[in-house]
């Protein structure tokens, strides 16, 4: 009898050990032992993504995603520590362990993915080249720019992109290049250009901060290019990539299912479908496969909201920047954001 018990204990252990080893991420374990999550901040502010409010607290899209990840892993959005980093410093700081993850408007490039020894999450934001135009022209898309004057910054990729895009869609135009971004802006404001091209989020910031009447300018819906912005992690901890990816996925699924920070408890008490039940930890599955609690997504949504709430609060309609969701909408609303399948 004793032998039988011992043997079954061995078998049980043998079955759980590889499973646990698969589920446990080294980084998540470190974060849980430390009790704080180390996220990247900025040595200043990067409009919409990383800012500091009047109470000296960090805010922004990237900060909210860090708070979401912190809630998922530690159950409390305030258990993160934002480490201010300059652009140049972010990757060495990640490698030396000063931060656990970089969520800092960082593009996913091949060089970073291979030579720098990083790995990237699913993109959570797509920033692309767009046009901003004077609102009184009454236009909404680049096709309407026919015959107009388009201004660009000289020698940038944006200049080439804008020229080839307008040629492709067959729009007759007159292109003027300026040496600096400031010159370009003042030329546009002085009505010397009908529209100018730039990185979407930067256009939105320019409109919200440097122009007296933001309502009088529109950002056209055309996306000339698109750069994926992802969270960056150290190579070699696949479990942590899974964690970050599913954190982002849970925010998107919550948006798809209409789960918000306001109604999350209601939805959990009375889940509309099995997907919602699993997401919110009413049915098991979310937690153990990542080595976390079953309810992590529910707590996370209660703390920071779903992806739409995070976006609108920091860049979208509830923010001063009013940046259209565009590509950054769910696939079902004409964007390119989608979540992997929650089975």
């Amino acid at each position, binding site marked *: 009898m004793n032998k039988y018990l011992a043997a079954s204990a061995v078998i049980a252990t043998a079955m759980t050990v590889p499973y646990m080893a698969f589920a446990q991420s080294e980084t998540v374990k470190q974060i849980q032992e430390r009790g704080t999550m180390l996220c990247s*901040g900025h*040595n*200043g*502010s*990067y*409009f919409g993504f990383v*800012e*500091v*409010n*009047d*109470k*000296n*607290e*960090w805010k922004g899209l990237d900060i909210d995603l860090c708070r979401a990840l912190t809630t998922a892993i530690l159950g409390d959005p305030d258990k993160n*520590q*934002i*480490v*201010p*980093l*300059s652009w*140049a*410093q972010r990757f*060495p*700081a990640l*490698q*030396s*362990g*000063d931060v656990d993850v970089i969520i800092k408007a960082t593009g996913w490039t091949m060089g970073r993915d291979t030579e720098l020894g990083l790995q990237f999450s699913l993109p959570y934001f797509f920033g692309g080249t767009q046009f901003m135009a004077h609102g009184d022209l009454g236009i909404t898309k680049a096709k309407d720019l026919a015959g107009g004057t388009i201004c660009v910054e000289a020698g940038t990729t944006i200049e080439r992109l804008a020229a080839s895009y307008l040629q492709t869609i067959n729009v007759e135009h007159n292109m003027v290049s300026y040496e600096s971004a400031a010159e370009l802006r003042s030329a546009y404001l002085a009505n010397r250009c009908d529209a100018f091209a730039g990185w979407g989020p930067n256009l939105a*910031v320019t409109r*919200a*901060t*440097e122009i007296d009447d933001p309502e009088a300018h529109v950002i056209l819906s055309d996306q000339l290019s698109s750069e994926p912005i992802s969270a960056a992690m150290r190579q070699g901890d696949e479990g942590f990539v899974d964690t970050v990816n599913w954190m982002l996925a849970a925010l998107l699924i919550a948006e798809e299912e209409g789960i918000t920070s306001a109604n999350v408890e209601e939805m959990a008490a009375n889940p509309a479908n099995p997907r919602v039940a699993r997401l919110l930890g009413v049915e098991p599955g979310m937690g153990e496969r990542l080595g976390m609690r079953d309810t992590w997504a529910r707590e996370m949504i209660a703390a920071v909201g779903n992806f739409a709430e995070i976006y609108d609060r920091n860049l979208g309609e509830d*923010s*001063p*920047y009013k940046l259209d969701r565009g590509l950054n909408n769910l696939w079902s609303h004409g964007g390119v954001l989608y979540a992997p399948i929650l089975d």
Partner: protein
Amino acid sequence: MAMTDITPAAVLVAPPSRFEIARGRFLKYGFGSPLAIAISIVVFAILGWIAWSFLDWAVFNAVWSKENVEQCGEHGACWSVIDARHRLILFGTYPFEEHWRSTLAAIAIVATVLLSCLPAMWQARRLAILWIVGFATYYLLMEGSLLGLPQVTTDGWGGLSLTLFLFAAVVLLGMPMGLGLALMRRSEMLIVKWFAVIIIDTFRSLPLVTTLFTAAVVLPLFLPSWLEGDKIWRVIFGFALFFACYQAEVFRGGFQAIPKGQFEAGKALGLGYWSILSQIVLPQVFRHALPSTINMVVVTFKETAIVTIIGFFDILASGKTAFGTADWAPYYIEVYLFVAAIYWVFIFSLGQYGEYLKGRMALSER
């Protein structure tokens, strides 16, 4: 000469005061001829116009409180941004409720620097005690956990109190290091001499940014973790070493001004190396090196702004963050002026202290 010897005639020929001389010259050169009068009028009109425009913008048309921010227009300064964001500028991202600690810590640092400036404190032991107490007070207050206060890691330190701390630590640490390097460079032992030469010339040929970046970012990649320490200490040490290498050359200039005969005279009197150094040579070295030293210190105060490149929230970085949000983005000029005024107060005081020291030291040469 006794007081009674002064006759009324002697009083009459007493030299005019400096103010009277200045006024006389002003009238003579400024309004002595029609051309001079015309030029003066034009110059004063321009100066007056500039001053008036500035006051008009900065004071008369300005909006002062954050509640009235809607009234901010194109014609006046919007000091609302300072009203709303001064705590961010002064304390960085230090937790809001704990700002009293950051304030006290900054006062401790200023007090330490002020006391170090008093001649009564200029003894090795007094200075050592003062600096240990001053910096320990700063650290204990800012970090907090040893005093049973909520812990704030160095990532959360920032603003004016971080700038003051970096500056004081770099100068107070770098000054003795610089003196040490200067003495080593004068050593008759070749190994010691060349060691100092290599250190000094290496760090002087590297940009400060590189030194700080290496200290903050590159060192932890290959240092064992027990030796790593906090980023802020590595940066202060790197910065102090950089300062010391320049300061060593300033001291070297001071040493060169002292005739060799003084060393020989000291030796002939039977004094040892350290006695000659501390009693005869160093007091003169300090006097000769003073103007350049004040210069170094002033430059260092301003150079602390470079630490933003390695992610520290010094006062300039926190100032930029203060207008780095949509609500306050248009009012960057006000923020820069506010930060500039703070820099001016500290650096002007340093310069004035330098003047005072010069006057005090000139006494020995009369």
